[in-house]
C-alpha cells in the first residue's frame, strides 16, 4: 500500500516516497491498533456470550422439570403435549417431535406426562437440529427425550454443565435434579448453537472485515492526499534541482505553501550569502592577479634583458652578470613568492574555511617564542632589536592560523620599522582576556589611515618599504575567524604602532 511498493514512483520522487511512507505508517498504525483493540474487546465479550448461554440453560432446566405434569404412563395423555409441541414448531420435525417419538418407543418404562412450557418449546424450536432434551430417572434411566444425550447424574441439586460434540456439533449440556409432578427426575437440555463460533462469525463479518476494508481505503486515500498535499514541495524541489550552480537568484516565497516558506527563506538567505562570497572571491582573484603582475613584470623585464644580451653570445658561451642585477632579481623573486604565500594564507584564513575545523587550546606564549625565533635573522639583517614580553596565556583557536597572524604582524613591524628601532612581541592576559600584540617604536600610522590599512592591497601613501598590502588584512581576517578583530593604536610610549588581538574571555 505504501509508496515503496511502487519502485518507479520511489525512484522518481524519493522525497515524496519517504514522506508518503512515513505519513502512511503514522496514520495507519493507530488505525490498525484501533482494529486490534476492537477485536480484542469483542473477543472478551465471547466469554460473556458463553455465560449468557449457560444462564439461559439454567433458566430453562427448571422449566423443563415443570413441564412434567404427571407421573402417569398413559400414552394418550402424552399426545396433546406432542401436538402442542408440533403446532408450536410450525412445520419441520422438531426436537419435541423426536422426544415424543422416543418416548413412545420407550413403552417399557413408565413415561411421565410432558407438557412443555412455552419458553422450552421456543428454545427447542428456535434452532432446529441444534438442540435436544432428555428427562431421566435419578438412576440415569432415560424416560423421555433425545437418546443421543449421554446420561448424567448430578449428585446435588445444583445444575451441572458439560460440553460434548455430537455429529460435528458442539453442544452445551445442562443437567439438573428437579422435583416434578412425577417425583425427582434429572432433566437435561442441550444447546448446539456454539456461542463462540457465532461470535467469531459476528466479529469477522461486523468488525474485522469492515475495518480492514476501511484501512485499505484509507491507505489509498492517504497516498493520494499526501501526493496532492506535497505537490508544492515537489515543485519547489524540481525548481531547486533544475538550477544551474551560477543561478543564485532567490526563489519565489509567495508561490510556496506557508509551512515551506521558512525553508524557502532560509534557502534564499543561503543563496545571498553564497552570492556575496562568490562575488568577494571573484574580486579577490582579480586583485590578486593584478598584484602578482607587478613583481612578475619586474622578473620578466630583468630576464628578458639578459635574454636579449645573450643573443649576441655564441652557444655554450657564458655571460657576466652585474652582482647588483642578480641581487635585484633575487629580491623580486622573494617578493613574488611572499605574495603567493600571502594570497594562499588569505584564502585559508577565510572565516568559513576556518569554521570547518575544530578549535584547540593554543599556548600563546609558546607561539610567540616560536615566531620570534623564526624572525631573529630577519631582524638582525634589518638591525632591529626584536624582543619578547610573554606572560603565560592560552586561548581556544586554530594554532596554524594564529601562527600565521603573528607572523604577519611581526613581518609587518620588521618591514615598516626603520633600522635601529625595536619590535616587541607580547602576549598575556588583560582583564581576563588573553591577547597577542606586536609593538614597535617606528613612525606609527595616522588615525585616519588605521581603518584603511586593514583593507586588502592597501598601502599607506608614501611608504618606502616594499610590501603587498596584505599582511594586516590577513591578520585581521584570521582575527575575525576567531570572533575578534585587530586593534591598531599608538604603542605604549605614545609613539610607534601597537597591533593587538584581544581574544574572548576563556
Amino acid at each position, binding site marked *: 500500500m505504501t509508496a515503496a511498493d511502487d519502485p518507479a514512483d520511489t525512484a522518481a520522487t524519493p522525497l515524496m516516497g519517504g514522506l508518503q511512507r512515513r505519513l502512511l505508517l503514522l496514520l495507519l498504525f493507530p488505525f490498525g491498533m484501533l482494529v486490534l483493540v476492537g477485536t480484542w474487546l469483542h473477543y472478551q465479550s465471547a466469554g460473556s456470550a458463553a455465560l449468557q448461554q449457560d444462564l439461559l440453560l439454567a433458566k430453562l432446566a427448571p422449566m423443563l422439570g415443570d413441564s412434567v405434569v404427571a407421573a402417569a404412563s398413559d400414552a394418550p395423555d402424552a399426545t396433546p403435549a406432542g401436538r402442542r409441541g408440533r403446532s408450536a414448531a410450525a412445520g419441520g420435525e422438531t426436537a419435541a417431535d423426536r422426544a415424543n417419538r422416543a418416548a413412545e418407543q420407550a413403552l417399557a418404562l413408565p413415561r411421565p406426562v410432558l407438557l412443555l412450557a412455552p419458553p422450552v418449546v421456543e428454545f427447542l424450536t428456535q434452532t432446529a437440529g441444534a438442540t435436544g432434551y432428555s428427562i431421566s430417572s435419578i438412576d440415569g434411566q432415560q424416560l423421555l427425550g433425545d437418546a443421543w444425550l449421554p446420561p448424567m447424574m448430578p449428585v446435588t441439586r445444583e445444575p451441572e454443565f458439560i460440553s460434548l460434540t455430537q455429529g460435528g456439533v458442539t453442544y452445551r449440556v445442562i443437567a439438573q435434579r428437579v422435583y416434578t409432578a412425577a417425583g425427582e427426575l434429572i432433566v437435561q437440555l442441550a444447546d448446539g448453537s456454539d456461542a463462540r463460533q457465532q461470535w467469531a462469525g459476528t466479529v469477522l463479518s461486523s468488525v474485522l472485515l469492515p475495518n480492514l476494508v476501511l484501512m485499505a481505503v484509507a491507505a489509498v486515500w492517504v497516498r493520494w492526499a499526501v501526493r496532492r498535499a506535497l505537490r508544492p514541495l515537489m515543485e519547489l524541489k524540481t525548481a531547486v534541482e533544475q538550477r544551474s550552480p551560477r543561478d543564485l537568484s532567490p526563489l519565489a516565497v509567495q508561490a510556496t505553501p506557508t509551512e515551506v516558506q521558512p525553508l524557502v527563506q532560509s534557502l534564499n538567505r543561503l543563496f545571498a550569502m553564497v552570492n556575496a562570497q562568490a562575488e568577494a572571491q571573484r574580486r579577490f582573484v582579480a586583485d590578486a592577479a593584478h598584484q602578482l603582475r607587478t613583481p612578475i613584470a619586474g622578473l620578466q623585464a630583468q630576464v628578458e634583458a639578459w635574454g636579449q644580451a645573450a643573443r649576441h653570445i655564441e652557444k655554450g658561451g657564458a655571460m657576466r652578470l652585474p652582482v647588483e642585477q642578480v641581487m635585484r632579481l633575487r629580491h623580486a623573486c622573494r617578493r613574488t613568492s611572499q605574495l603567493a604565500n600571502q594570497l594562499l594564507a588569505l584564502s585559508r584564513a577565510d572565516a568559513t574555511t576556518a569554521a570547518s575545523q575544530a578549535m584547540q587550546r593554543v599556548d600563546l606564549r609558546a607561539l610567540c617564542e616560536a615566531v*620570534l*625565533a623564526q624572525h*631573529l*635573522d630577519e631582524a638582525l639583517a634589518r638591525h632591529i632589536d626584536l*624582543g619578547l614580553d610573554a606572560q603565560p596565556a592560552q586561548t581556544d583557536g586554530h594554532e596554524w592560523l594564529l601562527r600565521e597572524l603573528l607572523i604577519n604582524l611581526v613581518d609587518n613591524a620588521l618591514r615598516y620599522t626603520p633600522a635601529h628601532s625595536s619590535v616587541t612581541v607580547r602576549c598575556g592576559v588583560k582583564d581576563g582576556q588573553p591577547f597577542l600584540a606586536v609593538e614597535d617604536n617606528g613612525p606609527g600610522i595616522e588615525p585616519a589611515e588605521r581603518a584603511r590599512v586593514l583593507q586588502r592591497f592597501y598601502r599607506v601613501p608614501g611608504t618606502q618599504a616594499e610590501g603587498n598590502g596584505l599582511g594586516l588584512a590577513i591578520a585581521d581576517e584570521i582575527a575575525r575567524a576567531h570572533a575578534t578583530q585587530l586593534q591598531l593604536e599608538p604603542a605604549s610610549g605614545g609613539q610607534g604602532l601597537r597591533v593587538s588581538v584581544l581574544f574572548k574571555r576563556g
Partner: protein
Amino acid sequence: MRLLLVEDDVMVASGIKLGLCDAGYAVDWVGSAERALEAAQAAAFDVAVVDIGLPKMDGLALTAALRSAGHAFPVLILTARDALQDRVQGLDLGADDYMLKPFELPELLARLRALLRRSQAATSAVLSFGALEMDTAHRQARLAGAPLELGPREWTVLEYLLMQAPKPAAKDKLLQALTGWDKEITPNAIEVYISRLRGKLEPAGIVLRAIRGFGYRLELPATAGSPAHDGG
C-alpha cells in the same frame, strides 16, 4: 657532506644544486624516487632533500621506503602543498623536517645544518657548531682545534645552547638546566656564565646573542653563506 637531492623539476633542482654545491655539499641529483632508492643503495649519504611531488612514487612514499630499507640519514621534505596533514604525515613516515616551496636558500642551508648536527649528535656524541666542538661523551670541548676550558656550569649552559642552535634558547630553560648544580640560581647568575662564555667563544667568531625577553642564541658570524660544517 654527501647530499642526495630528489627533485623532478629541472629548474628548481639546478638552483638547489648550485646553492648546495656552493655551500660545500657534494650533491647527487636524481629525478625520481626509484632512482633515489638505487642511489641510496650505491652510496652512503649524510642527508637527503626530497621533493614531495615526484612522478609515480611520491616523496612521502620514498621516505618510508628509505626508512624500511634501513637508511637512517635525515630526510628534509620539500613541498608546495602546505596542508597541515601533509606535514604531519611526512614526519610520521620518517621525514625529519619539511620546507615549503618556494623557499630561500639560506633557510634551506640552516635547516640542513640543524638536521646534520642532530643526526651527528645521535650517532657520535660530538656536537659541533662552526669552530666549536663538544664531545659530550668525554666532556671535552675544542675551539678551532684547541682544547677549550669550561667550568661545569659553563659546560651545561653551552651544551644547552648548542643543542638548540640555530634556534634561541629560552632563559628559563637554561635556568632549569642549571638547577642540577645550584638549588637557588638567579637569572642574573646566568648572565655571568654567558659573559664568561662570550669571552671564550668570541675569538673564534662565535657570537652569543642576547634575545630581549627570551634568552640567548649561538650565532656564526655569517649565517647565510658559510659552509655547512667546518669539519664536513
